[in-house]
């Protein structure tokens, strides 16, 4: 108010008097968030790199060891298994968790009845705490009285050993995470489908395009961006899989469900080797950064494109 002469519209710079005071106020407002970001985001990012290059028992001063930690991790026979499992898991999760919600959204979008109910039901599992959903499925997977083997029995199929066999354990994990995350994707796709202009379908139909061609040539291109963004998001999310192996299988049987993050957790909190754990974290970060960068780039274009 000291320099309260109203600035011309084009120059909003001098609103609260001298620039210095304005900046001081602004950084006052920013300080809380800045401190939190600095401590819990920016600093840990840097520290992750530093840790991965050190031997550190947090008692003696840390010792620089170059790429030793990376060598340790790479030499671990479980390392390769963990990456392969994570990649297979991601691929399977994409197959289930990416394609299925889109198909579900397509179908729901056609239905004129019970929409509210269907949306509600699809999204309900998303609201369960993930730990609850996972523990619930652990009980369903039980080879004895478990629900899934009961259902298989009903239709005359032999029961599976689900989590106890290395051939079915991984897919069992994918089933849980698909079940509990399906709703998110479905609702986002539904929102995207609503914004596809109906004229395009009409035009396509007049040109003689059948049902599937209309989906392929109208729906998919029109929702291309959101499909891409969801694909990236899905990859990023599933490559961090931890809670499912942690609660369901402990990485077993025979490391069949060992994931990269679970291995990282083990290095740090079971073997007490934060250096090796961080090295693994850095590797995962480098892989995921590629996807994250693409995700950020496309998701920022997205709102303008849609509205």
């Amino acid at each position, binding site marked *: 108010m000291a320099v309260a002469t109203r600035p011309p519209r084009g120059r909003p710079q001098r609103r609260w008097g001298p620039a210095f005071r304005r900046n001081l106020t602004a950084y006052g407002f920013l300080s809380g*968030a800045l401190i939190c970001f600095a401590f819990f*985001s920016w600093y840990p990012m840097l520290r992750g790199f530093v840790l991965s290059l050190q031997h550190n028992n947090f008692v003696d001063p840390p010792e620089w060891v170059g790429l030793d930690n990376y060598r340790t991790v790479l030499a671990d026979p479980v390392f390769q298994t963990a990456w392969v499992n994570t990649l297979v898991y991601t691929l399977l999760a994409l197959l289930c968790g990416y394609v299925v919600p889109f198909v579900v959204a397509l179908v729901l979008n056609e239905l004129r009845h019970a929409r509210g109910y*269907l949306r509600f039901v699809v999204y309900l599992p998303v*609201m369960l705490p993930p730990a609850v959903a996972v523990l*619930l499925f652990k009980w369903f997977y039980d080879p004895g009285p478990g629900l899934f083997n009961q259902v298989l029995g009903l239709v005359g199929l032999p029961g599976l050993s689900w989590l106890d066999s290395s051939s079915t354990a991984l897919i069992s994990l994918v089933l849980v995470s698909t079940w509990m995350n399906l709703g998110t994707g479905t609702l986002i796709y539904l929102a995207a489908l609503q914004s596809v202009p109906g004229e395009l379908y009409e035009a396509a139909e007049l040109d003689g395009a059948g049902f599937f061609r209309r989906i392929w040539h109208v729906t998919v291109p029109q929702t291309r961006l959101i499909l891409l963004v969801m694909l990236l998001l899905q990859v990023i999310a599933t490559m961090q899989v931890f809670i499912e192996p942690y609660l369901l299988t402990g990485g077993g049987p025979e490391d069949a469900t060992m994931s990269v993050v679970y291995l990282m957790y083990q290095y740090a909190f079971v073997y007490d080797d934060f250096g090796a754990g961080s090295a693994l974290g850095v590797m995962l970060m480098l892989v995921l950064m590629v996807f994250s960068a693409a995700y950020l780039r496309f998701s920022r274009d997205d709102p303008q494109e849609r509205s």
Partner: protein
Amino acid sequence: MSLTATRPPAAPPARKGAPRRRPRKVFGSEHRTVVSPHHLNTVWGRRIYWAVLVFVLVTFTLVFLFPLYWMVTGAMKTQEEFLRLPPTYFPSDWTLESYRQAWELMGLGKFLLNTFQYAFGALAFTLAFDVAAAYALSKLRPVFGNVVLLAMLATLMIPPTVILLPAYLTVKDLPLVQLDLLNTPWAIWLPTVANGFTVFLLKRFFDGIPRELIEAAQIDGASPFRILRSIVLPVSRPILGVVSILTVTNVWRDFVWPLLVLPDPERMTISVGIASLRFNMPQTTMTAALVIASIPTIVVFLAFQRHIMAGLTAGGLKG
């Protein structure tokens, strides 16, 4: 029949109905989708439509609702009935014994209270710090504001689990001040604030508030804080609602972080608490505990369905 193919304007179309059982319920076209209303109104179109509808209703109910039903009723069975083969679909004697046991043996009340404390504390800090930050970035526009914003958004590129270990070590021994935040609510509250997506959502909303409104207040001599309180916040209620719901449900659902930073059984969140007791509890008690743990989030969902859906699509995707 051929007339219906043209797209009627927004008003409810004056349809000439097909002579079926329910002539009033003809498929109009609120929004043209892949299948044309014209096709839907043919005899086969209707048959297929209803077949698909019934199929979807039954499948979805079975796949998404039945497990929850199984969980809720499973906890009402006795332990023998629970393990019986073939299973019963209705408990023969309904008993709330397992729920009582879960509550008492597992100390769920304590876990729930902890989780409430973490979730709402985190919400308070997030609203206080992130709203102020987004306001500063959007309306006060300090030097290097864009750099700060970019640095905050850049954290979105780093998935949370890959900085899990260094973040854990930071919380264990906070640099500069040498504080150990393990087993304190601060270990949940403060990291929640550092959420680039929240700042992004808020800033984008604040950007949309007309500058004239702010300028008018400045002319009247309002301080930046006063403008935030009396102008920006009142018009931002929708986005504050979305951010609140996202924050609370995220903290409530989180597992890995509280697992690491709150190892003391007295301090655990409900998810971690239940998981830590999973080996020593009878299956019925465990199931009852799962039900109790999901009640709060389900209630939030029922109460704020619309906002949650809005949050899902706001600014693209959830973080």
